[in-house]
């Protein structure tokens, strides 16, 4: 099976990222009766983003289950259900709400396996969203995945294409550990090639979204398109940018990142989470250490501005790294 979309020989069709998520769920639910979905407004409403539309028709309200607005409670229920024979996928409408679930995820889900000496397992998935620029203000726009990455026992996935979303979500569901799966809410309608035949993508394998020689741009989730856009702009300056998507932040494919950095000797890391004490801090550290003797310049970190996300459009737009900003940063790194 091809592990990256670029390896698909004949992409028979294009579907949206939202459809890819739904397909992954539907296929896994058909394959394994233990898989079920729970969350707020997931059934008839198909979630606030309509990503699960129709799923309840096939699987019924017992397997696509509307919950009260109790993120901590139903996450806890998922932990217990996962320990005792089911494989729940919980839906957290906005990633901003994961604060409500941190105790369940960190003190329970992430630790049950270890604390029990390896006896109990917690095969569950938490799907949550991230991303700003939706004019939703400070409590509905955050990208808080760095918290989850910090916690041993959890795995963290951030797909950036329909192809990756489908293959990674299927792996996440089959994984015997708690996996947190962050989807950019602005990308649900983004289309991309997805084969009709079945495939999975292993957790822990980065993907080179675009090969290049002069500079490496490591980008996650929403920022992958931004990086690809910047790479295109850089072409005009005859700068060849390599764009790498780690796809899973834990486990992290350090090798692919470091190899690219050693090749190009200049690196930008860009992620929509806050830049300080965030995902870019780790990615930059890994690269700065692993490619130390090859780097010509400090690794440039780009993340959300260190402010609560403002509502006002001109302000909000200023908080998120853009194609233009990445392009300028790359030029500066290359002294052009």
């Amino acid at each position, binding site marked *: 099976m091809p592990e990256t979309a670029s390896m698909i020989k004949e992409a028979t069709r294009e579907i949206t990222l939202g459809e890819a998520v739904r397909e992954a769920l539907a296929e896994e639910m058909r394959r394994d009766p233990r898989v079920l979905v729970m969350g*707020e*407004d997931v*059934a*008839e*409403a198909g979630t*606030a983003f309509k990503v699960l539309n129709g799923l309840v028709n096939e699987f019924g309200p017992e397997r696509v289950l*509307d*919950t*009260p*607005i*109790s993120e*901590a*409670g139903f996450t806890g229920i998922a932990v217990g259900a996962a320990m005792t024979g089911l494989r729940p996928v919980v839906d957290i409408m906005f990633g*901003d*709400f994961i604060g*409500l679930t941190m105790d369940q995820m960190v003190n329970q889900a992430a630790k049950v396996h270890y604390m029990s000496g390896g006896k109990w397992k917690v095969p569950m998935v938490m799907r949550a969203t991230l991303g700003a620029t*939706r*004019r*939703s*203000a*400070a*409590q*509905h726009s955050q990208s808080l995945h760095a918290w989850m990455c910090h916690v041993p026992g959890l795995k963290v996935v951030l797909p950036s294409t329909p192809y990756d979303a489908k293959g990674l979500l299927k792996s996440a569901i089959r994984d015997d550990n708690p996996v947190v799966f962050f989807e950019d809410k602005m990308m649900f309608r983004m289309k991309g090639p997805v084969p009709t035949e079945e495939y999975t993508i292993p957790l822990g394998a980065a993907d080179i979204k675009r090969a290049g020689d002069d500079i490496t741009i490591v980008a996650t989730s929403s920022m992958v398109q931004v990086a690809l856009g910047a790479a295109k702009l850089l072409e005009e300056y005859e700068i060849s940018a390599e764009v790498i998507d780690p796809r899973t932040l834990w486990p992290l494919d350090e090798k692919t990142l470091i190899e690219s950095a050693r090749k190009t000797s200049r690196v930008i890391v860009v992620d929509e989470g806050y830049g300080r004490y965030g995902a870019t801090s780790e990615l930059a550290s890994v690269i700065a250490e692993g490619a130390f003797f090859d780097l010509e310049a400090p690794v440039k970190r780009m993340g959300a*501005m*260190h*402010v*609560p996300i*403002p*509502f*006002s*459009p*001109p*302000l909000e737009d*200023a*908080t998120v790294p853009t194609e233009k900003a990445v392009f300028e940063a790359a030029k500066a790194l290359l002294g052009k």
Partner: protein
Amino acid sequence: MSTVAVPHSPVPNSQSPELERGLRMYRRMLMIRLFEEQVNDLYTRALMPGLAHLYIGEEAVAVGVCEALTREDYITSTHRGHGHCIAKGAALDRMFAELLGKEAGYCKGKGGSMHIADPDTGNLGANAIVGGSAGIATGAAFAAKRLGNGRVCVCFFGEGALGQGVLYEVMNMAALWKLPVIYLCENNLYNEYTHYSDTTAGDILTRARGFGLPAESVDGQDARAVYAAAKQAVDHARQGAGPAFLLANTYRFHGHHVGDVSRDYYRSKQEEQRWKAERDPLKVLEDWLAEQGVPPANFDSMRAEVQTEVDQAVQFAIAAPYPAADKVDQDVYA
């Protein structure tokens, strides 16, 4: 005592305080109604960034409750917060400006529809986390009690917030410490797109009572009934007798948010029609006012006045400038 300015009286003869209150509430409810119709219009004309959750249909709750409060008293509000803010005395022009993300808005455009806050009217802020203001409201009551300033706080929330555990944590402390806070649950039957009976076991009032709070329900479409119930709870709290829980039964006439237009899959057109025809809070109050002798023309002129106010306010907001880009990293730290 009220935060609501007495309008130019449209009824000539000297009025009873009760009639005056009725007219004041009517006008304030009309402000909410017409403000929000304008918000919906801004959305459909693609003039407003993002979404908004309309309070239309529920106006009697916010207005009836705030009629029982002073300007200094506190409220916390929700994602469906315009009604609470206006009822507590917010100015329409700055409300619109905030919804459009303009510098002149209540929060300099940083908050938007779901985060209107205003110390001048005791508005601690609308909150986009369901149940997210329960702690803040209880804390404000805690401070009021410690500082002995006689204020009370009303925590507005939808019945969906009954799913959030923190609500019970703070109700427990409010009861233990006899804090002057009223938990005002607006049961509009739906958590977004799911009927509350699918998410709420047991009995809501019994829940509150289990935590030691006196609890009662009230017809949320009847501003006068809401006022009476709120007044009692507020007076009680102000006298130091502790918190209370009020359940206002109501209905939102529009979708969950302005974009929620096809709603048949979760509630029927008939249900909506029935509420609009039979339980419109403006109509309920209008009927009573008419019974008291307020002539029909007065309602028309009030509506015209308020519409003018709304029109001017929205014009102001549309013309107002956005905040300068360098404001983005201000106000992060005090």
